[in-house]
């Protein structure tokens, strides 16, 4: 500290307390993280809004560590492993916070962290585009505060991780397009591989990225025409190899352990099977339905894309291609799969539209492109700001649209009911009330079974449907579940494997895929000669009714 005193060597002013310098990006990340965690706490502890898929993934992680037969393969091969793997380190803390598992809060923590990361990365890309601070923050806020982003940051679903890896891949590809350095290719490939391990929809994104890298590398190879093609191929291989590894490793592991490389399609618990059971098949209305959902999330998506493309074209900025190559194929694939009836009509399949619009708007707002157009047309400078505001509004209107969409079950069939209940309070429908009481009955069943103080492996249940019961129980080792290596044996011969009770759901909807229902079709109705009814549980929420049968001896 330089001395400000006339006396030499004497320091007069010395601050007693200095805050560490916080960068803008770090601040954004921490704010987003705390925000999403707070919302998560409200959703889970305050409103009992827990997503079934999220809880199910916590279940997969729990079965690896704390089930009756802990083994790594219990992570399950129907869905991508990364979300559950990331929850593994949190689970031992359930000793102190049982809600991590019982209410699945571990999933919420993971999704909050990664959605915060996605927000940070979005800010980072807008920073790379050299946007002025007001616009940068405005767009980042519009991303972070979009109701869909808030909800999926808080609710524990894997979309948060998916978006994180996708936006990370976009950022690396943008860096590669600008600098041509090998390291960005490598990290982009790794990010795409990570995205694949979160959700299978990363496949179209990976293919898009490969096509981009190959074509740009080929176009840049004019200096060495005879090696142009192989250089492009090699560059594509560098990006594609980690991605291919993720696909191959997962497929091979799946093949070795469950006998089929792509369980998502083959398994009875997989997507195809579920779609057939729920009869959410194809219909002409699906095309409209898909479009409505996309527009509900980002009404002026096309405007944002157009503006952004124009902005990038004026500046000859290739980086816009990174965004388009990675994100657009996912939307196209989701639309096509909806038309085909291959995937369910969930709103979240189109969540990628949100970062797409934000990032394209970022290109539209970059200094020098819109300005040049305006100056060339001789318009006044005030109009420049007006046009920028228009671009931002085109994205901002999505916030309101998104909120409306998410509480409307016809647009958001998956989460519409419980969110509508949340917002409407007293004027709720029966469907909404049932959604609000999700898993309540299952917790009751778990408490009842815990009270019986049963020995290890005495209750047989298919965790595909009954995961909420297993997770709510304080004694998870009393269950024989799907991931146990002797599950099939236990179904075939319950009493021989020590099973005393069988929990079976009513065969409506997905519960007809329950392994026990498949093995003993009449069991729920009448016991099928296997056992006699001990208890019956009518579900007050939107889950299945359950019956507990005592296995007859012999």
């Amino acid at each position, binding site marked *: 500290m330089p001395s400000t005193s006339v006396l030499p060597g004497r320091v007069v002013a010395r601050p007693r307390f200095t805050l560490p310098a916080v960068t803008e990006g770090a601040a954004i990340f921490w704010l987003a993280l705390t925000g999403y965690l707070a919302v998560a706490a409200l959703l889970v502890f305050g409103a009992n809004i827990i997503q079934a898929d999220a809880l199910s993934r916590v279940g997969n992680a729990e079965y690896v560590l704390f089930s009756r037969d802990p083994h*790594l393969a219990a992570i399950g091969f129907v869905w991508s492993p990364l979300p559950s793997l990331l929850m593994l380190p949190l689970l031992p803390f359930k000793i102190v916070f049982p809600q991590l598992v019982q209410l699945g809060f571990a999933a919420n923590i993971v999704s909050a962290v990664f959605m915060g990361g996605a927000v940070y990365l979005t800010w980072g890309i807008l920073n790379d585009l050299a946007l002025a601070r007001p616009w940068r923050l405005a767009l980042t806020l519009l991303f972070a505060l979009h109701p869909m982003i808030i909800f999926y940051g808080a609710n524990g679903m894997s979309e948060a991780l998916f978006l994180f890896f996708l936006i990370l891949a976009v950022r690396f590809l943008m860096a590669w397009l600008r600098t041509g*350095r*090998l*390291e960005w290719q*490598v990290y982009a490939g790794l990010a795409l591989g990570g995205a694949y391990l979160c959700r299978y929809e990363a496949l179209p994104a990976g293919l898009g990225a490969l096509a981009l890298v190959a074509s740009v590398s080929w176009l840049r190879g004019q*200096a*060495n025409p005879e*090696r142009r093609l*192989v*250089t492009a*191929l*090699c*560059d594509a*291989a*560098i990006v594609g*190899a*980690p991605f291919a*590894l993720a696909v191959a*490793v997962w497929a091979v592991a799946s093949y070795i352990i469950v006998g089929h490389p792509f369980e998502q399609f083959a398994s009875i618990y997989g997507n195809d099977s579920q779609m057939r059971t729920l009869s959410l098949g194809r219909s002409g209305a699906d095309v409209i339905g898909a479009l409505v959902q996309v527009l509900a999330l980002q009404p002026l998506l096309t405007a944002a894309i157009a503006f952004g493309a124009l902005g990038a074209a004026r500046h000859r900025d290739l980086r816009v291609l990174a965004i388009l190559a990675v994100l657009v194929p996912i939307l196209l694939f989701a639309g096509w799969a909806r038309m085909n009836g291959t995937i369910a009509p969930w709103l979240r399949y189109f969540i990628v539209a949100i970062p797409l619009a934000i990032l394209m708007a970022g290109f539209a707002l970059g200094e020098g492109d819109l300005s040049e157009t305006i100056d060339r047309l001789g318009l006044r400078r005030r109009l420049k700001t007006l046009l920028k505001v228009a671009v931002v509004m085109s994205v901002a209107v999505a916030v309101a649209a998104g909120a409306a969409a998410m509480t409307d079950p016809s647009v958001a069939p998956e989460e519409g009911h419980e969110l509508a209940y949340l917002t409407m309070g007293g004027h709720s429908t029966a469907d909404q009330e049932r959604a609000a009481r999700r898993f309540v009955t299952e917790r009751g069943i778990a408490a009842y079974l815990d009270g019986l103080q049963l020995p290890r492996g005495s209750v047989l249940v298919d965790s595909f449907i009954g995961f909420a019961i297993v997770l709510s129980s304080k004694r998870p080792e009393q269950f024989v579940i799907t991931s146990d290596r002797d599950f099939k044996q236990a179904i075939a011969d319950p009493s021989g494997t020590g099973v005393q009770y069988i929990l079976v759901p009513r065969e409506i909807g997905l519960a007809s895929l329950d392994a026990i229902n498949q093995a003993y079709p009449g069991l729920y109705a009448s016991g099928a000669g296997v056992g006699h009814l001990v208890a019956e549980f009518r579900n007050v929420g939107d889950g299945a009714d359950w019956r507990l049968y005592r296995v007859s001896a012999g």
Partner: protein
Amino acid sequence: MTVHNRVREPRTRRLSYVEPDLVAYRLLNRGQSKGLPLFAIIVGCAFVAAPLQTVLAFNAVATGLYVLAFVYGIYLVHRALAQPGMIRVGDTLARALADADLPICTVLVPAYREPEVIARAIRSLESLEYPRDRLDIKILLEEDDHATIEAARRARPQPHIELLEIPLGLPRTKPRACNYALRFARGELVTIFDVEDRPDPLQIRRAVAAFHRVDRSVVCLQAKLSYYNARQNLITRWLTVEYASWFSMLLPALAAQGSPVPLGGTSMYLKRSVLEAIGGWDAFNVTEDADLGIRLHRMGYRTAVLDSTTYEEATSDFVNWVKQRSRWYKGYMQTWLVHSRHPRRLWQELGPAGFLSFHLTIGATPLVPLINPIFWLLTLLWTVGHFPFIETLFPPWLYYPGLLCMVFGNFMIIYANILGARMGGYPDLLGAVLLAPIYWIMMSIAALKALFQLIRVPNFWEKTTHGLDRQPSPEVELAVD
């Protein structure tokens, strides 16, 4: 003139007077030759007393080594990607140096039994772009190699190229010849070229310019090596990818990080004063270049990588390849044994990071191909037969790390080689990289041969045959930038 006298020639064995324990004259020093049998006895007793636990312990050590090598590999590649770490001197800058400012450079070209290629080598040396009065080129010929001496004389070399006859002596190795020549060297810088090398003509100028740029502790500049017959067949492709990965990616990363840098056999530019002070080359080490690099680092000097390429001939024949590769592995084993003699001193001189790097680059390189076949065999047996004894050998705490290394470790090696090929300018060798597992089998064969030779004839320098590239005056297949 008896052979006996020449062996004691101090100028060829100067290192043994400077640092007797750093010479590979004896493979094991006193401590090692006592420690090794003791270790063997302990292991033998352990195996008798508790066979399963002993085997598990070996498995654990091997798996630990694999995991360490895997993590280190990722770290090096990451560093290489972030910061290439080579010193680049452009053509104009290299030519801008005034002749008067250039130091004298001694170029040693050892040649033994190369009558066919010696003429070509002389022509290649004459094309170096460096003032002839500042070049001190010595072609080192063994005294009794009359065919090559004759062929060299018939090629009528220019006056600045001297034919130096090395008196007979044991061991008949390249470093012994170089040590002998060192006493007649006039240059401030010393470098070595092999007979079949085609150096970049501006390379010496680039080295001089680079020396002005680097820190005073950098006394050695290693240029990149590559092959001019890169695409002749699959073996040359594999070799080219290896060299590309090593010189374009890994070596600069090691140098940039301050880790010990094993040198390549040619095109290293050393300051003669330093070279003499540390005792020259180890005449008994068959990879004297790697040994020199480690010794330089131990004495506090540093090496940097120069972005200039010397093209060598890649051996295209399987038997020749095994000879060369087993010599390299044997040399690395020698180097490892020699420098591990006083571990505490090694730790102090290299620092913890350098110590680890030394063991992973010099020690693991020949060791891993030796252990690999054991694990390949176990994996094969498990896939085919699911034998229960394999399951007992791999409890979960060994199984998962081992699986990780097998899947991700091997992927990383292949991926790093793709990156190396791309960085070195050989993107079309992608196919060869993907066939690398066959190459790994070949490496294990060579490693086994190296082990046998290490035990039986440690100082024997198995010569690689040159001139197999089947082209009378081949165009240099330059790398793509």
